[in-house]
């Protein structure tokens, strides 16, 4: 049962092909660690899966509509001039959550920001902003989570919160596609791994033992020489 799939997707930005026939099938309930060097096309692929960008060629298939997708990109996607609560209530309303106030309060509790719920996002530390962003992405209990380098520049508390949320999401049957450079954290959660190299998916399969013990094994085996 496929949660989301990319079928021979090409994406051009002007002359430059960011994706060159990338294909990826993600089964429901999987947690895919999307690896690749900078410029490989991870962000582009995730944005296309999140309906932010249209492929130049190729198709995307998803089992849920926009209300079932949670996206966390490079930008944290919260408004600096709104409070944490106001932010989450707004996004709850946008995502069609039944009781936005209640969900917002619960989400803030979950990420450990309940004490600063009325603080403006611009006053938060970086780690707090990240946790607020994570709260936003998980707020509507999405069935598909698309996360672009979510562990980057998180402090240890934020990492713990994120890992816990990801585990809970997987336990309740959600599907996760997560691009990352932090291979170790990702490998612990991942059920599957995909390697993107210069716009193509050069490897996609279950996480194997070698990947856990030696994170760079995948690059050396399937990737191009550095």
């Amino acid at each position, binding site marked *: 049962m496929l949660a989301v799939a990319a079928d021979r997707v090409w994406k*051009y*930005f*002007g*002359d430059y*092909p960011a994706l060159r026939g990338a294909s990826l099938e993600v089964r429901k309930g999987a947690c895919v660690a999307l690896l690749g060097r900078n410029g490989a096309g991870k962000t582009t692929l995730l944005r296309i899966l999140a309906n932010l960008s249209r492929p*130049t060629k190729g198709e995307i298939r998803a089992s849920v509509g926009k209300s079932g997708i949670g996206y966390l990109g490079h930008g944290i996607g919260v408004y600096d001039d709104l409070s944490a609560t106001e932010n989450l209530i707004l996004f709850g309303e946008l995502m069609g959550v039944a009781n936005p106030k209640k969900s917002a309060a619960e989400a803030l509790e979950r990420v450990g920001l309940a004490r600063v719920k009325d603080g403006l996002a611009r006053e938060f530390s970086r780690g707090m902003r990240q946790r607020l962003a994570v709260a936003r992405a998980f707020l509507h209990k999405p069935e598909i989570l698309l996360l672009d380098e979510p562990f980057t520049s998180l402090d240890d508390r934020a990492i713990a919160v994120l890992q816990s949320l990801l585990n809970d999401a997987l336990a309740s049957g959600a599907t996760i596609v997560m691009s990352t450079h932090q291979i170790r954290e990702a490998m612990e959660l991942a059920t599957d791994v995909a390697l993107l190299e210069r*716009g193509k998916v050069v490897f996609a399969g279950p996480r194997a033992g070698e990947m856990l013990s030696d994170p760079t094994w995948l690059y050396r085996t399937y990737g191009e020489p550095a």
Partner: protein
Amino acid sequence: MREKATYALGILGAIVMIWNLHHIFTQMAPEAAQGMAGWILFIHVPADFMGDILYTIALVTSILFLVKKDFTYDSISVACIEVGTMFILVNLVTGSIWGKNQWGIWWTWDLRLTTQLMKFLLYLGYLVVRPAIAEATQRATMSAFIAIFAYADVPLVMMAIRLPNVRTQHPSPVIETGGINSVAVPFVVGIIAQLLMALALMLVRLHQENTRREIDSLRRELHAL
């Protein structure tokens, strides 16, 4: 083949225009053309007509691009708007020259000149913004959007400048002459001449746009290697 067609059309258009002017100067009675300087109207009026036709074509192809996402329509749109704006500029300049000759002033805010200037400004926005958008699909989509908004404004402008106290009803430079036959022919021939030249210019511009896209896609393949 395409080059030959372009040259042929351009030269033919020039020949027709020169023949037309010759006919005006030698065959027509001076009163019919409001004095010898009136010949410029036989460029001025057809230019307005050509500009309007081209803008209308651009409207249709802009809509078609948004619906079908085929870049051919975008190429035709930009070619039409560039050539059309050139014709409107010709219209403005010849109108100004005629006005100087006829009334002694280079510009007047009468109904016709104001409308033409407005059209020029509307599509000037299109021409200024389009090159600032780097990505091809975005550029074509935004251009289509701007072209549609600009076209919708023209009837609104024409209505607005007829509101009370907005513009003085200057005697418009319509040629009141006896004998419709004497003036109709040069106008029609003038239109034909400009039509041919417009076609030639459009072919040049379309070729340029297609070449650019070909270069883009060759560059893409090179990057992809």
